[in-house]
C-alpha cells in the first residue's frame, strides 16, 4: 500500500517534465526500490512487490515498442525510395491508375495500354495507331496537336456511343521529351450524362406507356359514377378490370425502374467473375414453382464443370430469370423448358453459351430482330394476358451487352424458341 502512495506523485511530476518515457523508467526504479525496501522489512510482501514490478516493466515495454517500430519504418522507407522506386516499371504504375491510360510514342503508335483501358476499349495492342482507334473528330484534333508538339494542355470530351454510351474527358500529357512518349488519359464522366438521359427516357416512356391503363381506369370510374351507378354486376366486373389495370401500371413502373437501374450503372468492374452453373441452378429453383403451375417441366442440361465468365452475379441472375420466366409464359404448350450450359462456337468464335429453350409456338422471323426493343410486342393481347410489360427483354439485352456477351435468338414457328447468352472467350490480355 505504501508503495503506491509513494510512486504516484513521482510519476505525475516526471511525466510533466520529461515525457512518458522517463516517467516509466522512474516508475520502474521506484518500484524496484520499493520492493527492495519491503523485502528487507517484511518478506511476505516480497511476492506482491515482484508482481507490481513485472506489471510496471510490461507497461514500460508496451509504451516504448511502437515508437521504436515507427522509427525503424521511417528509416526503411528512406532506403526504399532511393533504391527501389526506379525499379518499379511504368507499367506497374499504369496498372495502379483506375482510369484508362494509353501511352503512345511520337508517331502516334500505342506503346502501352493499362488494364483499365483494355477493359473499356478492348485490346488496344501495342503497335496500334491511335488515330485509327480513336476516330472521333475531337480526339483526332487532340492527338494531331500532341503529335505536332503543340501545347497538349487541352482537354476534350469524347463520347463512345456504342455499344454503351460512355462519356470521357480526355487529356494528353507529354511524359518525356527525349523519348517523345505521351500519355492519353480518359476520365469517365458518364454518370452525369447517363442520369440526364435516364431521366428524359424514363419520363418519355412512363408517360407514354402509363397513359393507356390510366385512360381505361378513368373511363371505368366515369361509367361507375354515371350509367352503371346502381348496376351491381357491372360494378364488380369493372372493379376487377380496374384492379388488373393498376396491377399493370405497378409492374410497368417496376420494370421501368429496373431498366433505368441497369442502364444507370457504369461499366462492369474489371475482373469480376461469376460461375454460371450455380446462377442457373438458383434461377431454376426460383421459377420452378411457377413453371409447374404452368404445366411445364424445367430440364437442366449440363455437366459437372464450372463455367466461369467475366460478369456480375446478380445481373446475370436477372438475365436468366427473365428469360426463363418468358419461356414459362410463352412456351406453355411445349410441356418442358430446357436449360443448357456448355462450351461452343458462335460464328467461329469459341465461348460459353447458356441457352433456354422452350417448345411453344415460336416467334415469326420478322419479329426476331426486334423483340429486344422496348415495348415491342409480337402479340399485344398475348403479352397483356401474360402480364408482360414489354421491357423484360430490353433489360436482358442491356445487361448482356454490358457483359460483352451476345444474345442469340433462334426460333421456328411451331417448334419453339431458344434464347442463348453467348460469352465469347476473352483472350487473356492482361497476363
Amino acid at each position: 500500500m505504501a508503495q503506491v502512495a509513494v510512486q504516484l506523485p513521482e510519476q505525475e511530476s516526471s511525466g510533466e517534465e520529461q515525457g512518458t518515457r522517463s516517467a516509466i523508467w522512474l516508475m520502474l526504479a521506484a518500484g524496484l526500490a520499493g520492493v527492495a525496501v519491503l523485502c528487507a522489512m517484511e518478506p511476505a510482501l516480497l511476492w506482491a512487490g515482484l508482481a507490481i514490478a513485472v506489471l510496471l516493466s510490461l507497461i514500460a515495454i508496451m509504451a516504448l515498442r511502437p515508437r521504436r517500430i515507427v522509427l525503424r519504418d521511417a528509416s526503411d522507407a528512406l532506403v526504399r525510395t532511393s533504391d527501389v522506386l526506379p525499379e518499379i516499371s511504368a507499367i506497374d504504375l499504369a496498372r495502379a491508375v483506375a482510369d484508362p491510360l494509353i501511352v503512345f510514342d511520337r508517331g502516334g503508335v500505342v506503346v502501352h495500354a493499362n488494364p483499365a483501358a483494355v477493359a473499356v476499349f478492348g485490346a488496344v495492342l501495342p503497335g496500334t495507331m491511335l488515330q485509327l482507334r480513336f476516330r472521333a473528330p475531337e480526339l483526332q484534333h487532340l492527338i494531331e496537336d500532341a503529335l505536332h508538339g503543340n501545347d497538349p494542355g487541352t482537354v476534350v470530351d469524347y463520347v463512345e456511343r456504342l455499344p454503351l454510351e460512355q462519356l470521357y474527358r480526355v487529356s494528353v500529357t507529354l511524359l518525356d521529351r527525349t523519348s517523345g512518349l505521351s500519355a492519353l488519359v480518359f476520365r469517365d464522366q458518364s454518370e452525369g450524362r447517363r442520369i440526364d438521359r435516364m431521366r428524359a427516357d424514363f419520363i418519355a416512356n412512363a408517360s407514354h406507356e402509363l397513359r393507356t391503363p390510366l385512360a381505361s381506369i378513368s373511363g371505368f370510374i366515369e361509367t361507375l359514377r354515371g350509367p352503371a351507378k346502381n348496376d351491381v354486376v357491372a360494378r364488380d366486373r369493372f372493379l376487377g378490370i380496374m384492379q388488373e389495370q393498376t396491377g399493370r401500371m405497378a409492374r410497368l413502373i417496376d420494370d421501368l425502374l429496373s431498366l433505368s437501374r441497369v442502364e444507370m450503372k457504369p461499366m462492369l468492374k474489371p475482373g469480376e467473375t461469376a460461375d454460371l452453373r450455380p446462377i442457373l441452378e438458383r434461377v431454376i429453383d426460383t421459377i420452378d414453382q411457377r413453371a409447374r403451375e404452368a404445366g411445364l417441366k424445367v430440364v437442366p442440361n449440363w455437366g459437372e464443370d464450372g463455367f466461369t465468365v467475366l460478369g456480375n452475379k446478380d445481373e446475370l441472375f436477372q438475365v436468366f430469370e427473365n428469360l426463363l420466366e418468358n419461356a414459362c409464359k410463352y412456351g406453355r404448350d411445349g410441356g418442358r423448358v430446357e436449360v443448357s450450359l456448355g462450351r461452343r462456337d458462335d460464328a467461329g468464335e469459341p465461348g460459353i453459351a447458356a441457352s433456354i429453350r422452350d417448345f411453344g409456338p415460336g416467334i415469326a422471323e420478322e419479329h426476331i430482330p426486334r423483340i429486344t426493343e422496348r415495348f415491342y410486342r409480337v402479340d399485344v393481347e398475348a403479352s397483356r394476358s401474360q402480364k408482360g410489360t414489354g421491357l423484360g427483354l430490353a433489360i436482358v439485352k442491356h445487361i448482356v451487352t454490358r457483359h460483352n456477351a451476345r444474345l442469340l435468338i433462334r426460333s421456328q414457328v411451331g417448334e419453339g424458341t431458344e434464347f442463348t447468352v453467348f460469352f465469347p472467350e476473352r483472350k487473356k490480355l492482361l497476363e
Partner: protein
Amino acid sequence: MVAQQHSVRSYDEELKFLVARIGAMGGHAERMVERAISALVTSDTALAQRIILDDKLLDDAQREIDEKAVVIIARRQPLAHDLREIIGAIRISSDLERVGDLGKNIAKRVVAVSEGLQPPRLFRGLEALSDLALTQLKEVLDIFASRSVDRISSLRDRDDNIDQMYTSLFRELLTYMMEDPRNIAPCTHLLFCAKNIERIGDHATNIAETIFYTATGRLLPAERAKDDRSHHIMMAPMLRKAGE
C-alpha cells in the same frame, strides 16, 4: 480541315499518313450518321444543316487519299503487302465517303419528316437499326486499327441481322401508312432512311472484305446469297387487317 504541310520524309511515313487519314475519315463518317439519326429523331433541323455541310470534309479527304495513293504508287512502285495496303486505302476511303453521303441523305430528309409531330414509335425501329449498322461500322474500323482479321467472319455474319431488321422495319412502316394516309409522306422518307442505314451496313461489310484482302492477300469466300426480303413484301390482305 487541318491543312497541314506534311513534309513526308520516308515511304513508311507516307503509308502511315494514308492510314491515319482513313482513321479520321472513319471518325467523321461515324459521327455524321450518328448525328443524322439523332437529328431525325429529335427533329433538329439546325443539326441536319450542319451535317450536310460536314459532308464536304469527307469528300475532300477521299480526294486527298486518292491523290496521295496515286503519287505513292507512281514514285515508289510498291509490291505485295504495301501495294495491297494502298489499294485498300483507296477502296476503304471510297466506302467511307459513300457512308457519309448516305448520312447526308438522311439529314436532308429531316425537314420533310419533322413537318408535323411524329409519334416516337415511328423512330424506335430506325434507331435500333442504326445502332446495329453503326456497331458494325465501328467494329470494322476497330478491326482495321488492330488488324485482328480473325474477327471478320463473325462480323460478316452479323450483317444478316441488319437485313432482317430492315425487312421488319419495312413491314412496320407499311403498316403505319395503311393505318393513316397522313403517315405516307413521313413514312416514305423513313423508308429511304432505313434503306440508307442498311446500305451503310453493306459498306461496313465491304470494308471488312478489303481489310481481309489487305492483311492476307486472299479474298474472303464469296458472299452468301444476299437477301433482305423487303422486295417480297406486298400488301397482303392479312397485313391490311393487322393495320386496321
